[in-house]
């Protein structure tokens, strides 16, 4: 990404948000900002990148938008003199502040992640409007055709306009729920990037957007917790393999972990702890911070990790949390106990490959290789990425003594 491209991506969210406040129309705002970017592409190489690129984009886009509104008005004047008069009065009134306001982006984030919009549309809108990705980039991020993504964006924007989804930060009574929706969208964006090396840039995008959110709402500990979770996960990414192989946590070369990111993530976790308003993301970040604190796998403080899982499951009693907690408990109380806990969620998570992978690992430790091989076999059949499938097949083959990748695994 070159300087101009980076400036565009960073200017997109604030510029579109400001234009929406001024003109009350998302499509008009998007088009005007796009026009301003086109103007910048011509002008900046000659005149140099302005000191305040966002301000430049907003001012240019605002002028373009006023032109666009006037043009469409002039057409209407012929048939609708009265309406045109009223609109002209509105423009001349124009007391609005064209400077990007602190709250503009925040309002837009909450609009994009409004619960009346379906989640996949929330994600697409957030990446498009706040993230500044092109519709083609959003499409490839979610492995759908450009055409499908364009329709999705049009539908979502139609809903916002027709249903009058408000452009405002929710009031205190609704804020916790609404913020949770925003954080889940960011979480989805990050995970799409973490699951697939080819879409790794989505991790960076999620981190950037979360940093924006944290800067806008510095007193919300769950946003900080999510940021810490992302950073600590990013820190270990270099040791997770090149995408062609799975490298388990216990086998990772910890010297490859990014110590600067770990320090930043741990500092964020500590800052969260001090606020004493621990929510699910902060607890997950705390668990990751403990993993990152161990210089060797053997040094992992599993007792503390289980304690955090106990608190996590109390506020977020999902089967996946129960699965992760069972794996941690196996480290403190032995594989037998862990296995018994897994049975509790076996039915609910029967279609989830990681349940069977975890069972395989615990059965292996209990000296039950045949059952372990069966579990890995089942996990391989359910896994989605080639990397996971080949890893699980190899585990299965090792246990049955077969040639790697040979039948029956």
């Amino acid at each position, binding site marked *: 990404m070159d300087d101009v491209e980076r400036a565009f991506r960073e200017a997109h969210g604030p510029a579109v948000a400001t234009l929406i406040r001024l003109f009350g129309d998302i499509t008009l705002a998007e088009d005007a900002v796009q026009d301003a970017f086109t103007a910048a592409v011509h002008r900046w190489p000659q005149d140099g990148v302005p000191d305040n690129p966002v301000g430049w984009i907003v001012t240019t886009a605002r002028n373009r938008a006023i032109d666009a509104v006037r043009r469409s008005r002039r057409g209407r004047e012929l048939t609708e003199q009265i309406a045109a008069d009223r609109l002209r009065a509105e423009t001349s009134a124009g007391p609005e502040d064209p400077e990007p306001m602190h709250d503009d982006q925040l309002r837009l984030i909450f609009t994009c992640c*409004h619960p*009346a919009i379906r989640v996949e549309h929330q994600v697409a809108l957030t990446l498009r409007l706040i993230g500044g990705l092109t519709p083609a980039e959003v499409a490839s991020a979610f492995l759908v055709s450009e055409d499908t993504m364009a329709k999705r964006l049009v539908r979502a924007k139609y809903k916002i306009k*027709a*249903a*009058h*989804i*408000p452009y405002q930060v*929710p009031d205190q009574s*609704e804020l916790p729920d609404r913020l949770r929706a925003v954080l889940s969208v960011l979480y989805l964006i990050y995970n799409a990037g973490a699951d697939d090396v080819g879409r790794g840039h989505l991790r960076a995008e999620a981190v950037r957007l979360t940093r924006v959110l944290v800067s806008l709402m510095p007193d919300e500990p769950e946003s900080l917790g999510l940021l810490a979770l992302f950073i600590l996960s990013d820190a270990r990414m270099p040791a997770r393999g090149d995408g062609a192989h799975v490298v388990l946590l216990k086998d990772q070369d910890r010297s490859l972990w990014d110590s600067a990111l770990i320090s930043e993530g741990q500092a964020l976790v500590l800052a969260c702890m001090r606020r004493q308003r621990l929510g699910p993301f902060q607890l997950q970040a705390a668990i990751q911070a403990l993993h990152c604190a161990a210089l060797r796998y053997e040094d992992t403080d599993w007792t503390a990790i289980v304690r955090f899982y106990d608190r996590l499951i109390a506020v977020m009693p999902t089967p996946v949390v129960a699965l992760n907690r069972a794996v941690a408990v196996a480290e403190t109380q032995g594989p037998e106990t862990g296995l018994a806990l897994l049975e509790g969620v076996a039915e609910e998570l029967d279609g989830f490959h990681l349940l069977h992978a975890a069972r395989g690992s615990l059965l292996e430790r209990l000296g039950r290789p045949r059952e372990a091989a069966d579990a890995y076999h089942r996990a391989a059949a359910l896994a989605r990425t080639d990397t996971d499938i080949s890893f699980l097949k190899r585990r299965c083959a090792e246990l049955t003594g077969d040639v790697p990748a040979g039948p029956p695994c």
Partner: protein
Amino acid sequence: MNQYLLSVYDVEGDGAGAPATPEEMQAFMGRVIALEEEMDRAGAFEFGGALHGPDAATVVRGGTGLDKVTTDGPFVEAKEHIGGFYIINADNLDEALAWAGKVVEAINHDIEVRPFRATGRLQDAPGR
């Protein structure tokens, strides 16, 4: 000010939560009347009504140049059908959803909220 249609959906054969005894019916009516008065005081109440069952519906099909065909309705054979509705005034979707939440609570039915644009003489409707 914008308007929204709150459609109250009945599910065929699902009597769960419906008032069964005269006392329950009375309590139900009490809740509905109280809510409608609250909407009215807030300037949100525009119009409301209840529909007879889908068995009472008739469908008329046809268009320009086509013969009109009248058939026993409803238009869509489904388990869910609209049992009643409100037209309300609200500044934005959040405000409409807040009223919708109160309706759901009062009548114990799921509802759909849709932006509405009056094209006729809604101002003549009762309740105005």
